[in-house]
């Protein structure tokens, strides 16, 4: 035992003890690949977020993937109609785990001002949402605040959370 303590002491500051989850979480939080699912006017503000002035790349979440299979975050940007909802669920279910859902804008969070015949009243009725950013549209600062909060969430996550499984969704009329 004494021998072992001496060995550990000899290592000094060259070793850091941690958990595997913490290391993985630290790695994940700065390397999000995003899948922007853009349907409406919030997309204009997303362009500002992604562009050079506000520059989402500073937070390591700049790289948009053109296939949901390669993405980590589903950025749902803009009003989701009943007609669009099955497509959104299909995209979510195609993403590989781990995956997070970022609800971008008032319409996505709650239906926004569209309390009508065609609009989904918040995508949390069909998908597990990790972060809500309201606003019509939200300012880039709000989006970054949401993103940083999501990073904190991801860093603290335990691997037992995954896999989360498919989103269950049963429309009355199947096509």
């Amino acid at each position, binding site marked *: 035992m004494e021998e072992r303590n001496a060995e550990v002491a000899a290592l000094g500051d060259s070793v850091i003890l941690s958990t595997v989850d913490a290391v993985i979480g630290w790695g994940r939080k700065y390397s999000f690949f995003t899948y922007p699912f853009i349907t409406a006017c919030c997309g204009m503000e997303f362009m500002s977020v992604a562009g050079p002035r506000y520059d989402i790349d500073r937070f390591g979440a700049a790289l948009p993937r053109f296939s949901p299979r390669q993405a980590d975050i589903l950025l749902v940007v803009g009003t989701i109609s009943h*007609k669009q909802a099955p497509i959104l669920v299909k995209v979510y279910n195609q993403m590989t785990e781990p995956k997070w859902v970022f609800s971008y804008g008032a319409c996505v969070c709650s239906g926004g001002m569209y309390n009508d015949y065609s609009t989904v009243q918040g995508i949390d009725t069909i998908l597990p949402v990790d972060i809500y950013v309201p606003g019509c549209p939200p300012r880039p600062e709000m989006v970054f605040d949401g993103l940083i909060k999501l990073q904190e969430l991801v860093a603290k996550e335990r691997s037992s959370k995954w896999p989360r499984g498919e989103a269950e969704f049963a429309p009355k009329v199947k096509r």
Partner: protein
Amino acid sequence: MVELSERIKRLLPDAVLSAGSSLGQQYVVVRREAVVEAMRKLRDDETMLFNFMMDLTAVDYLGKRAHDARYEIVYHLYSLKHHHRIRVKVSVGADDPSLDSIVPVWKGADWFEREAWDLYGITFKGHPNLKRILLYEEFVGHPLRKDYPIKKRQPLIGPEN
């Protein structure tokens, strides 16, 4: 100079019920039965030449007009030759909200008429493909009618809200 709407009234005395202008914009109200012939004349007549059908939409005047004039179909026409424009209105009743399609006159009216049918339930007789364009096939009713309940949900292909 005689105003455009007045000239149209003289050109189509049988079809035009009234003519006038509102906020400097000319309009004519056309008899429902005469709409296709009137449109064809407006397109082909040398003094009119309305070769561009800019817009076609419907208005629901529920509670504001008589039962037999509940809906109004509004056409916006423009002449690229003469640079003049006219608004043509046609009233249809609540019991039989239908009129003849103007697709034979302007092919571009196809999707506009489908939209008016989808959201207001106006039937365009003789339309080549009158089916829903914005909503999904399973949707029941026409949501932009004023008597469509604002809280009514038909989540047939979407989620339960």
